[in-house]
């Protein structure tokens, strides 16, 4: 007597081979017509010119990788298998280039889903006489294409997220310069909202520059900080304390009228911190502290 599980596995294997042969047949019989029908269907999602230009090439590439996987007996129901590796990488490249071109996630996955129409048409043509097999084949095709579209959407999202992360990092680096205003006077103009990570970065670079240059005075200019709440004030206080611990002094400048009102209304205690309205005031105070005298000879 035969092992029932074995028979089942064999039957599954035979059915899979048949389906793969059938799909391969559909894909290779009239590739031109299939591609055309696919592209017409895909074009309905939108009219992005750049995408329309690369679409035929992308479709060709994807079709090639599908045929390769089918001939290598890849299991239609298991898209995570190694046999689908090339198809997955083609889809990843596709979604990355689409993301860079500015296509939406919907457009990108619709491009993959559009293959359903010619694929289903081909299957119907071949299996018109056998509705039961036709249903199985359609189900397998639909699942496969859905998984492909899902994969595309996932990689699309991942590549978009990496773009956002890179931009965040660049923004962080851009917005934290420490400049030398005078011998022994450093300034850190802060621009944008202050959060923990940015304050940490500014604090580190400012302290490092103080050690390198031996400057005795640091000016933190918050003209470009849109709002000051208790959290931002706390970050500022921490920075000032760290600077003082190292043996330098700190002036906070660029306190705009609205910000001054907010600070007072919130009851934030800036006692013991020298604050000035403008960077110019802070610099003139710094020079006075350093013993410099500025004079303009009478003309």
């Amino acid at each position: 007597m035969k092992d029932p599980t074995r028979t089942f596995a064999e039957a599954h294997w035979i059915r899979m081979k048949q389906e793969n042969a059938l799909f391969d047949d559909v894909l290779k019989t009239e590739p031109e017509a299939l591609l055309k029908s696919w592209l017409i269907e895909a074009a309905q999602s939108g009219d992005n010119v750049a995408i329309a230009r690369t679409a035929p090439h992308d479709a060709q590439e994807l079709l090639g990788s599908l045929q390769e996987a089918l001939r290598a007996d890849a299991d239609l129901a298991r898209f995570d298998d190694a046999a689908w590796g090339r198809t997955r990488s083609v889809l990843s490249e596709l979604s990355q280039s689409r993301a860079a071109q500015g296509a939406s996630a919907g457009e990108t996955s619709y491009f993959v889903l559009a293959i359903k129409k010619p694929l289903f048409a081909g299957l119907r043509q071949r299996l018109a006489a056998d509705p039961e097999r036709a249903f199985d084949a359609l189900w397998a095709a639909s699942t496969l294409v859905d998984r492909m579209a899902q994969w595309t959407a996932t990689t699309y999202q991942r590549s978009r997220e990496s773009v956002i992360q890179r931009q965040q990092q660049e923004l962080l680096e851009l917005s934290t310069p420490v400049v030398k205003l005078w011998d022994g006077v450093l300034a850190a103009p802060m621009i944008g909202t202050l959060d923990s990570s940015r304050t940490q970065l500014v604090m580190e670079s400012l302290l490092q520059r103080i050690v390198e240059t031996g400057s005795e005075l640091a000016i933190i200019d918050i003209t470009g900080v849109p709002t000051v709440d208790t959290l931002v004030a706390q970050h500022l206080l921490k920075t000032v304390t760290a600077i003082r611990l190292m043996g330098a002094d700190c002036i906070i400048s660029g306190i705009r009228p609205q910000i001054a009102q907010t600070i007072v209304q919130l009851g934030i205690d800036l006692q013991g911190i020298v604050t000035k309205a403008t960077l110019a005031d802070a610099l003139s105070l710094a020079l006075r502290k350093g013993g410099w005298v500025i004079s303009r000879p009478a003309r």
Partner: protein
Amino acid sequence: MDRIPILKMGRCLLVTIQVDLLDQTALALQDDLAERISATAAQGVLIDISALEIVDSFVGRILASISGIAAIMGATLVVVGMQPAVAITLVELGLSLDGVRTALDVERGMALLQAGERSHGGA
């Protein structure tokens, strides 16, 4: 056990910490310093921690208490050469060392102590 040397320069005491500050060493330094301030009637104490790379809450607290001891005994404490990482750590630990005077390096710290002494002598 290592002991941190305490040098006398005029009316000031100079302490340079060149090794990692272990808890025992820090406690011994606190004892020795109190003894020496009393023995030499020092007006100022200068602690150079520029070689100190790592601090924990204990060492931070010892620094604060050394400052308190020095103040009670009539000497001014100046901590010089704190590294950025150390300063950030102390701030994050909530140890702002209020009342401790600080300077960027030994030279500036000395100048600070001498200025204090002069104004003290003049008053």
